[in-house]
């Protein structure tokens, strides 16, 4: 039996903390020592060129990708402990992917309710009320009986966000959640995330939407080739980047 380290974690400490995180796929080292601390309620964005390891980084935080070396802690729980209670971790951390990944055989409402019912075995009435409230929040109440394939990309992505939130996570991870969307629908998803951040949710986003990153972040991390090259408040990263790699990247995307 592993003592729950949650008891020793206090909100004064980082809610997510990565230290010296390395990850290799075979001989190819994707992450070469990552250090990130995120406090409760903070919003941080991770930007950087394609292939720099952003998705890999974000996936180590909820244990989807095991690390090769280093430590990833969420509320004091070491994510890559052999004896980790995976469920405990996944209740704390929600993740939304680029491709939505809704369950195509379930309606919108069922998608949102499924995990709390099956995994947490919560009361159906309570879950249903919560799911409806979340769908209201992402402005999809009228779509609750629709199947994912009947929705637009932006709508599907908002369902995916509601689905994650219904587990009442403490931290939300977003991996390029607008990258697959039409320009018109990008905004509706960004607004949803912004509302969420405004409510005090701790958010970590990988994004190519630089304007959004600047607007929403408390801190921005610029990654390149598996390392954090530079980090700081958005005003610093976007207006006075120190490293030439950051400057070069920003000159291409801005």
């Amino acid at each position: 039996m592993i003592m729950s380290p949650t008891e020793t974690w206090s909100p004064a400490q980082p809610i997510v903390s990565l230290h010296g995180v390395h990850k290799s796929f075979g001989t190819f080292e994707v992450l070469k020592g990552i250090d990130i601390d995120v406090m409760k309620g903070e919003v941080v964005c991770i930007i950087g060129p394609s292939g720099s390891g952003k998705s890999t980084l974000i996936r180590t935080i909820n244990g989807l990708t095991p690390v090769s070396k280093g430590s990833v802690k969420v509320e004091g729980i070491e994510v890559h402990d052999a004896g980790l209670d995976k469920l405990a971790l996944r209740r704390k951390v929600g993740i939304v992917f680029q491709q939505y990944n809704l369950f195509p055989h379930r309606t919108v409402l069922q998608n949102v309710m499924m995990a709390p019912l099956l995994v947490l075995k919560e009361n159906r009435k309570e879950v249903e009320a919560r799911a409806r409230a979340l769908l209201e929040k992402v402005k999809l109440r009228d779509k609750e009986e629709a199947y994912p394939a009947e929705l637009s990309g932006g709508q599907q992505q908002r369902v995916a966000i509601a689905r994650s939130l219904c587990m009442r996570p403490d931290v939300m991870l977003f991996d390029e959640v607008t990258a697959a969307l039409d320009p018109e629908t990008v905004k509706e998803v960004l607004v949803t995330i912004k509302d969420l951040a405004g409510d005090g949710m701790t958010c970590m986003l990988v994004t190519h939407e630089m304007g959004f990153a600047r607007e929403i972040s408390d801190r921005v991390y610029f990654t390149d080739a598996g390392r954090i090259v530079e980090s700081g408040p958005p005003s610093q990263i976007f207006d006075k980047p120190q490293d030439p790699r950051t400057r070069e990247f920003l000159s291409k995307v801005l």
Partner: protein
Amino acid sequence: MLDLIAPFFERLNDTTGLNFSPFYDSYDWGRLLEGMWVSIKLITAIIAVSLVIGVVGAGAQTSRVRPVRWLVAAYIEVFRNTPPIVQLLFFYFGLGAITPQVDMGGWYEPMIGSFGWAVIAIGIFGGSYNVEIFRSGIEAVPDSTKEAAESLGFSQFKIFVYITLPLAVRICLPALTNNIVSLAKTSSLAYVIAVPEITYSLSGIWSDSVNVPEMMVLLFLYYIVLVAIIARIMSVIEHRLALPGYGQ
């Protein structure tokens, strides 16, 4: 029912010599109904066994334990590459000879009768195809969908039951329909170990009444109608499971 049609078929026999004895002779009528009933029970049981084996086998094939995967692979090799009739005879005469007898109060009966062996043998035969069919469906379910479930805290088992399987079934339904129809037809092999299904009971009738061609026609008709019904049921299921806007 029989009273209604008997005069017609009796006259047919008298005037043309076409002898459909089950349609006017109540004893043969009983044999026909019994044969159909046993045949339907047999087919239902075979399909059920083959589906359970298919799902469990395909699930086992995704196991992390290598010997489990080898075992399933060996099973598929053996049962797909040998004739079902040989398998049936092997089970009935080979294994049947060594299964214990049950004391029925004075006399002894084999624990598993010919019906039981037919269900086991043909069910296992059909299951070997179903494992492959379900596996192809399971492999077609995107990893990203399963990953989303994993991120929501689903255990591997719950992912399989609630996500992978329902999607896999929809993907492999057409192939499954083919195999189920083929199994329904293969069930007639049970004839060789004297399971009193339709082929067997009609053979009883034709050896008594010497009306082989007529009974053959009946047998053909029975299977044509049966297969049509199964195909219809499967298409209703396919329709029911179809997801609005999905896969089009």
